[in-house]
């Protein structure tokens, strides 16, 4: 019902509280981070220096900062590994859940578990599993022949091990959400297409290749974009498991951002890094909205 507003009913009141909250706590921040990024703000330094306009100095410092460059590289690798793993596993789970078998609804129920578990808890859980001696994942890796000594092996204290560990923990945590989206996508494909192709003699693989794959692609894109946003914007699991270490091997961008603000207390540099993140998010979101509108909303 697209009814005309009646006289005497102030319609803006319906939106006012939501807009007020969003405006004060989210949108105003964009102005603030831009302001911060052009000024000197180090909370640990003498007060009179703070608030001085420094032009593009913070941006220059950011772009030439080795820790920033390293964190971007790590984030790209982390994002690629975790999104590829998440989407592939999510696709497998969605295809499985779309089959009819006994306990199908139980299988879908299982998928809710990692989604409902907090990132912090997921991080603790995987750290525990990877403890030398007491961690069962170590024994699992030992029986597979990947590691030699479950009592001594400590995944989180080697760069490659720590990186793999945060990737696995992230895949564990984020796959169910992606799987649920892909499952919804699978269920939106009309049954008749498969029936018709069977009449034409299509097998399991050609049905996947010519029906499932093209019609599911928009949903896969949505999944990939969510994973990308997560890699750039979520630090919980990494903070808990490695805090960026050993060395800087897992210091992903959001962790670098957090440390710039609250360990170095450099709000000017932090502002510049935040602006960088906002621009990245807007570009990613542009693609997200485009694929949502192009394929999903009009469907």
């Amino acid at each position, binding site marked *: 019902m697209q*009814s005309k*507003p009646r006289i005497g*009913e102030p*319609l803006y*009141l319906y939106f006012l*509280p*939501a807009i007020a909250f*969003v405006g004060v*706590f*989210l949108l105003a*921040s964009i102005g603030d981070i831009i302001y*911060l990024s052009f000024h000197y703000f180090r909370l640990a330094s003498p007060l009179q220096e703070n608030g001085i306009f420094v032009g593009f100095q913070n941006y220059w410092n950011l772009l030439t900062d080795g820790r920033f460059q390293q964190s971007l590289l790590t984030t790209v690798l982390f994002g690629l590994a975790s999104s590829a793993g998440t989407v592939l*596993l999510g696709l*497998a789970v969605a295809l*499985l859940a779309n*089959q009819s078998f006994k306990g199908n609804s139980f*299988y*879908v*129920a299982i*998928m*809710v*578990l*990692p989604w*409902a*578990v*907090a*990132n*912090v*808890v997921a991080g*603790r*859980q*995987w*750290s*525990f599993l990877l403890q030398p001696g*007491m961690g*069962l994942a170590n024994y699992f890796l030992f029986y597979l022949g990947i590691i030699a000594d479950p009592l001594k092996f400590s995944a989180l204290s080697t760069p490659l091990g720590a990186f793999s560990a945060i990737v696995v923990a992230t895949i564990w945590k984020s796959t169910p*959400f992606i799987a*649920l*989206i892909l499952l919804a996508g699978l269920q939106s494909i009309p049954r008749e297409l498969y029936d018709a192709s069977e009449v034409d003699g299509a*097998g*399991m693989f050609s049905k996947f290749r010519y029906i499932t794959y093209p019609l599911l692609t928009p*949903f896969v894109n949505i999944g990939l974009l969510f994973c990308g*946003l997560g890699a750039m*914007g979520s*630090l*919980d699991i990494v*903070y808990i498991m490695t805090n960026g270490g050993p060395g800087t091997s897992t210091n992903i961008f*959001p962790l670098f*951002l*957090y440390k710039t*603000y*609250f360990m170095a207390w450099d709000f000017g540099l932090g*502002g510049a890094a*935040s602006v960088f993140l906002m621009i990245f*998010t807007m570009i990613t979101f542009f693609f*997200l*909205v485009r694929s949502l509108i192009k394929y*999903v*909303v009009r*469907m």
Partner: protein
Amino acid sequence: MRRINLLEQKIRKILTVVGVLFTSCFFVAPYMVMVLASLSSADQLLLTPPNLLPIPPHFERYLAVAFSNEFGPTIINSLIVSSFATVTTLVITLPASYGVTRFRIKGRTSLLTLFIALMAFPSVGIIGYLYDLIRAIGLFDTTPGLILPYVAFNIAVSVWVLTNFFKAVPIEIEEAAALDGCSKMGILLRIVIPLIKPGLMAAALIVFINTWNEFVVALVLTITNRARTIPVGIASFQGIHETNWSETTTAAVIASLPVVVLAIFLRRWIISGLTAGAVKK
């Protein structure tokens, strides 16, 4: 051709069973190991390989952790923060989502786009701003200081879920009520809300779990147990010398198991909420 189909079905069945078992193990086993560890005695965990059959189960550690000075207050804080944030978010987004789907006013589409766009808003990007803002208004290290930003962060997802349920309500019902002289607010409260109860349920659950699990904003905006929430408590939960895994796993299970059980039982609403709009019916 018939034989090929039978073979295909057989392969498909075997692949399904193997795949389901394998993925189920991957998603459930790591968490179950932690639950078992939380019930085992501290000595059992030190065996190599650890003996995780909790016989007898040690429930007393749950009480000890839940009522400890270090961890106990964070449970209360989390309950307060998540409940108030959920209720406030719903009260604010109900009229907004209703208006956005129903009123013919200027800027309606751009308003909806704005709300939805905020779903991608990276909270970690504005932790510096929130820190300054919440300090400036004197709410640093208080529960209201967390509730306010949490409401803002969850408006997007709540609007997303609710608008998709509002769209499914037949317009004719509302038109009939309008003809009978019902006001817009009256239509919303008396007719539409009862019809979208599943949507409210979905939005409430998702917002509650989001806020219950939120970490980085709570880490930045709290410093003592006056306002620290469970995830921050777990992050700082350490033994005196090194991580005390028997207590850490217990705290982690206390923090997650109630939400996990709730989510699994009410999964119908959560799944419909999460995938709402992804598929147009």
